[in-house]
């Protein structure tokens, strides 16, 4: 299996290649169809609109009080014995984690699933410092064995089918080639148990950080998150600053929305709430717990009333599961840590519009993402906003704003606007254009890649209607 490097700059080429790959098309189509059905079925007993309203409202309240809640979270965590660190960007967060590892002389890190750690490329940073970082979520483990990145934020190995996974495990770990999923799961269990026992540090993400109690909540099915946060002597949790919620009672509605929206489950196997390191007299759990709060562009998104909605996200992945573009091109095509609709509205803030200018326009604006979002993020509106920012018609507060501005295009629209608001000039120019229609180009950029070029009619509709009326009036008189 070839290992390919994907970049957002090469989105169009990557999309073209993915569309021509029947394996990718089939793997994603099957998975997304299943996930959409499961989500729909699991919400049947619920007043879904009221629940989504509550979810959006809880997230909005948390954002409205964000600086105060972050301070409250910090105070309560520290009272509980959890040390809190702040990082301006991914690199600073990597450095904090590396230094914590080095202070303990750690050589190996076992990881629970964390998209923030992907966003800041933590594994590569630790490896460069001679610290081994091993993923323990089965999907992440498989993706890491295959030297890839996750193609979905909830199901990292969704782009691989059983045969491909069997081949990867055979190549990298020496297991038998098989289609027996239980055998492969048991093999991975055995391989990773050894590593849980020997790891010096566990690194995890956080689904919700509760300000009121200083509690870190982790949502998972496998138990690797509990292992990661319980077995090694030090646990480092890393999270974006937007993951905080005000009260403990804010958690049940968000958890209800998260599992159902993500995978159509009523609940996950484990909901793990950590409020302190091992206390005197307790027999297991880490001696040290650290929380790293990462900004990495989030406080800039926070400045703008419209863009702020991006930060409501609880990372369920429903938007990608329901996205007709994501389903066809798969997660890697985007070339960014977060793929799909949420990636398209989040990554431009992290990487700048120079690198990601093609992402907001890789959408038909069908609206499915906004309709299923459990916290009602108006994703299509945000896509439109980022398109405006890219062509310099927004507020200019997204990095790289105006990168797609094209003087010819601007001039063309300006002339069209002038013509369309001056009827005499409009009639004159359409009449001339109709006469010269033979000169119109037959290829107009990407538009004509799969379509024939539009041609002006010989006579405009206005002229036709006028002629028709005249004929009718004359006929009536005779």
């Amino acid at each position, binding site marked *: 299996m070839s290992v390919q490097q994907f970049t957002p700059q090469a989105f169009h080429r990557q999309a073209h290649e993915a569309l021509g790959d029947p394996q990718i098309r089939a793997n994603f189509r099957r*998975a997304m169809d*299943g996930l959409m059905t499961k989500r729909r079925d699991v919400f049947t007993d*619920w007043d879904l609109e*009221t629940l989504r309203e*509550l979810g959006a*409202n809880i997230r*909005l309240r948390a*954002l*409205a009080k*964000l*600086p105060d809640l*972050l301070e409250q979270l910090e105070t309560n965590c520290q009272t509980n014995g959890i040390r809190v660190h*702040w*990082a*301006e960007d991914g690199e600073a967060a990597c450095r904090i984690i590396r230094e914590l590892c080095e202070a303990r002389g750690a050589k190996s890190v076992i990881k629970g699933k964390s998209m923030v750690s992907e966003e800041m490329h933590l594994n590569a940073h630790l490896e460069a410092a001679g610290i081994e970082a091993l993923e323990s979520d089965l999907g992440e483990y*498989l993706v890491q064995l295959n030297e890839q990145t996750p193609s979905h934020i909830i*199901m990292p190995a969704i782009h691989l089918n*059983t045969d491909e*996974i069997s081949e990867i495990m055979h190549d990298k770990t020496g297991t038998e080639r098989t289609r027996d*999923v239980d055998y*492969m*799961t048991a093999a*991975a269990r055995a391989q*990773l148990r050894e590593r*849980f026992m020997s790891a010096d540090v566990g690194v995890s993400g956080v689904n919700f950080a509760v300000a009121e*109690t200083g*509690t870190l909540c982790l949502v998972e*099915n*496998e*138990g690797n998150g*509990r*292992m990661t946060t*319980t*077995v090694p002597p030090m646990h480092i949790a890393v999270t974006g600053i937007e993951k905080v919620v005000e009260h*403990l*009672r*804010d958690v*049940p*509605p968000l958890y*209800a929305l998260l599992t159902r929206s993500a995978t159509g489950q*009523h*609940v*996950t*196997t*484990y*909901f793990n709430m950590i*409020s*302190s390191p091992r*206390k005197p*007299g*307790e*027999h*297991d*759990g880490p001696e040290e717990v650290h929380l790293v709060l990462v*900004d990495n562009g989030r*406080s800039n998104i*926070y*400045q703008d*009333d419209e863009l*702020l909605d991006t930060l409501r996200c609880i990372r369920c992945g429903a938007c990608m599961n329901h996205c007709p573009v994501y389903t066809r091109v798969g997660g890697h095509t985007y070339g960014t840590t977060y793929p799909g609709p949420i990636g398209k509205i989040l990554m431009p803030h992290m990487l700048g519009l120079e690198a990601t200018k093609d992402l907001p326009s890789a959408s038909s604006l069908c609206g499915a993402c906004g309709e299923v979002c459990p916290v009602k993020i108006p994703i299509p509106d945000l896509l439109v906003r980022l398109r405006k920012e890219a062509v310099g018609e927004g507020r200019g507060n997204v990095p790289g704003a105006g990168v797609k501005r094209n003087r010819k295009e601007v001039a063309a629209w300006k002339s069209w606007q002038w013509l369309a608001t001056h009827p005499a000039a409009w009639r004159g120019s359409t009449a001339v254009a109709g006469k010269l229609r033979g000169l119109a180009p037959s290829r107009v950029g990407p538009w004509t890649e799969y379509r024939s070029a539009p041609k002006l009619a010989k006579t405009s509709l206005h002229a036709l209607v006028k002629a028709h009326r005249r004929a009718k009036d004359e006929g009536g008189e005779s």
Partner: protein
Amino acid sequence: MSARESILKRLRERTDGPLQAPESDFTVVTGRGWDTGERIERFERLIGSVHGEVIHATLTDWTAKLAEVLTAKSIRRLALGREHPVPVAARAALLDHEVELVDVDRDIETWKREQFESVDAGLTSTRGGIAETGSLWLWPTPDEPRLISLVPPIHIAILDSETIEDTFFDVIERHGWATEMPTNALLVSGPSKTADIEQTLAYGVHGPRELVVLIRHPQEAT
């Protein structure tokens, strides 16, 4: 300026000005109004749907049922606490059983490999259950530490039927979690599972392959 100060400063000096915090109405996650029978039925149906195994017992015969489970599943070494009434009663009842009882009130560093490799099952009490999602809630203690519900391949949990409540929200509110969060609070809903290999469900990926919930009913209810 430290990272902390500059992040907080940016958030406080927001370009578009301060935000209004809305009030929240939590009606949709509470007020189910189920009776005990409905709660037990829902709990069993939901935890059963994710491979949790439910066994009904009374306050008097539950240890006999537990012994049957141990025999049926060929459990030779069972890890359990020593102080909570559940492990105390289990220990007393299992004296004549061939199962070996493993003490868990030891620092994990002293017996990590033993727990990972040679314990067949962990027995724990539970604080309660949640009918809506088929979940157990556990607050591990020094007597019943965090890992015994995770590391052994089988987890046996003892649940009293009257401690099952309607929703997670109800549990948090009624039991005042916000004022006394323990080191680790857990919801457990079934055995460990994954669907990371082409959406095919497999159980026991990192945690227990099997979860057995022994529900103890008050005498008159059975």
